[in-house]
């Protein structure tokens, strides 16, 4: 261990990485996410978003309320693909006679 202050454990993003990002001009929370990779691991920011945002406010001297969160997208938690495989309306890949083709599962909400 080398004395790192880790802010995002999923992606090994440190306080020094955040400071470096800001020094390079990437100071918007979305830019910091893209530059450092924080918030893009298995926890999707559950452990790190608030911590990074509050540190970003401190480093850049902005009031906390001026810093928005990054965009929240589904899935909110790691989800096995099989969970979505039978969703009505979802496309399902079926392998018939060696040819993969797309079919639809039965579902009453499908209208197109």
């Amino acid at each position: 261990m080398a004395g790192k202050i880790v802010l995002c454990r999923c992606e090994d993003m440190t306080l020094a990485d955040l400071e470096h990002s800001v020094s390079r001009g990437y100071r918007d929370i979305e830019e910091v996410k893209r530059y450092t990779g924080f918030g893009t691991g298995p926890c999707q920011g559950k452990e790190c978003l608030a911590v990074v945002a509050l540190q970003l406010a401190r480093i850049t001297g902005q009031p906390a309320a001026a810093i928005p969160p990054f965009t929240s997208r589904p899935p909110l938690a790691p989800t096995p693909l099989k969970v979505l495989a039978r969703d009505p309306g979802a496309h399902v890949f079926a392998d018939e006679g060696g040819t993969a083709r797309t079919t639809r599962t039965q579902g009453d909400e499908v209208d197109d």
Partner: protein
Amino acid sequence: MARRLPGHDAVRGEAVEVRIADTSVRAYAEESIAAAALASGTRVLSRSLKYHRPRTFFCFEGHCSGCLVRIGGVPNLRACQAPCAGGTEVKGQNAFPSAEIDLLGAVDFLFSRGMDHHTLMTGSSMLNKLANKVVRQLSGLGKLPDHAATELPEVHRIDVDVAVIGGGPAGLAAATTTATAGRTTVLVDDQLRPGGSLRTDPRTGRTEAEARWSAATSAGVLVLARSTAIGFFPEDDGGVLAVSAPDRLYRVYAKQWIWATGGYVVNLPFPDNDRPGVIAARAVGRLLVDHGILAGDRVCIVEVPGVVADVTALAAALTTAGAEVTRLPLADVVGTRGRSWTTAVDTRDGKVDCDLVAVAGTPAPASEGPRQQGCRVVLDAVAGGFRVVVDDHGRTTAPNVWACGDVTGYLGPAAAAADGARIGANVVREGAP
């Protein structure tokens, strides 16, 4: 060293055996694999993505990435959300040859001042090609499952008056209130057993969690345990909440929505704060009051002022259970020591020997679900992060969407329960049935 305390056998369930990293371990049916692993001395479970720093348990509530393991040939499962069924085969991942002795850990020392992957090995095109070959071998999380899924989860549709997301003190109270008033109510909770922070606080504990869960069920609430809200899709039929459970997918449609997702435990920024043996204070509380496991004999609590009452209660309970407890303000901590497990905390004045560091930060509101439903949030240091903005009645800025408990700013279990009951009553009074 973590150990099981006597007098908790009834809540542990029957004795079972699980295999963790090729070693047979005594466990109990009601324990999570993470709790059993910790109690049996397992320390490192995997390695981190970039520097290959050792990784293990931190939050014990299924939200961090610390305890990802391979269970029964399936990668990237959280050990803290997996029950100990007999014969379960658990393996670490992301390390060579093993999580405990990972040769790739050298990366951490080679890049002790950090690694900027934007400029790493980009100077020479030949070096860049070589570096990319190596990186492709090293990166990624886990390996593919042993077998393809044979049975696909079923899809169920649920139509209710009220959907409550989160089964902690606030959610259970809100759902019980709406169901008692005759509103059809579903409650979604992602943990092995509902109860949320009630199961982590010595002032409430397992008994109160079970009582409130059972009150909700008796009132007619459809309680879905081990069920995770994975996304809100507004474009679908007035809005659908997708909920993932081990054997099915629920499509939930509701007239009124109540977010009671609480707050996530967070780590605090101090050097080597990710060393194994540094775990969330709330996890230490959960192990003690919900599992009857004392996580360490000499516990050093690193804390911030916002949670002083919670830390005081936890420290007292740990002391009663036989641990030696030291409390340190975050500002005094300058580092941690140890190899595969923490042995001391360095402070401004010296060092404190310990076998566990419990980190007590203000929980961060779990507001990313409400954000998907269009609720405004605001970053607020006192609230612990991005709290959902609500009016005096608990209404968010999105129509028919309400929020209560810690997701609106940290309250703690007792106040969150009271808030949940209040907002549940408001939904009954003001929400269109």
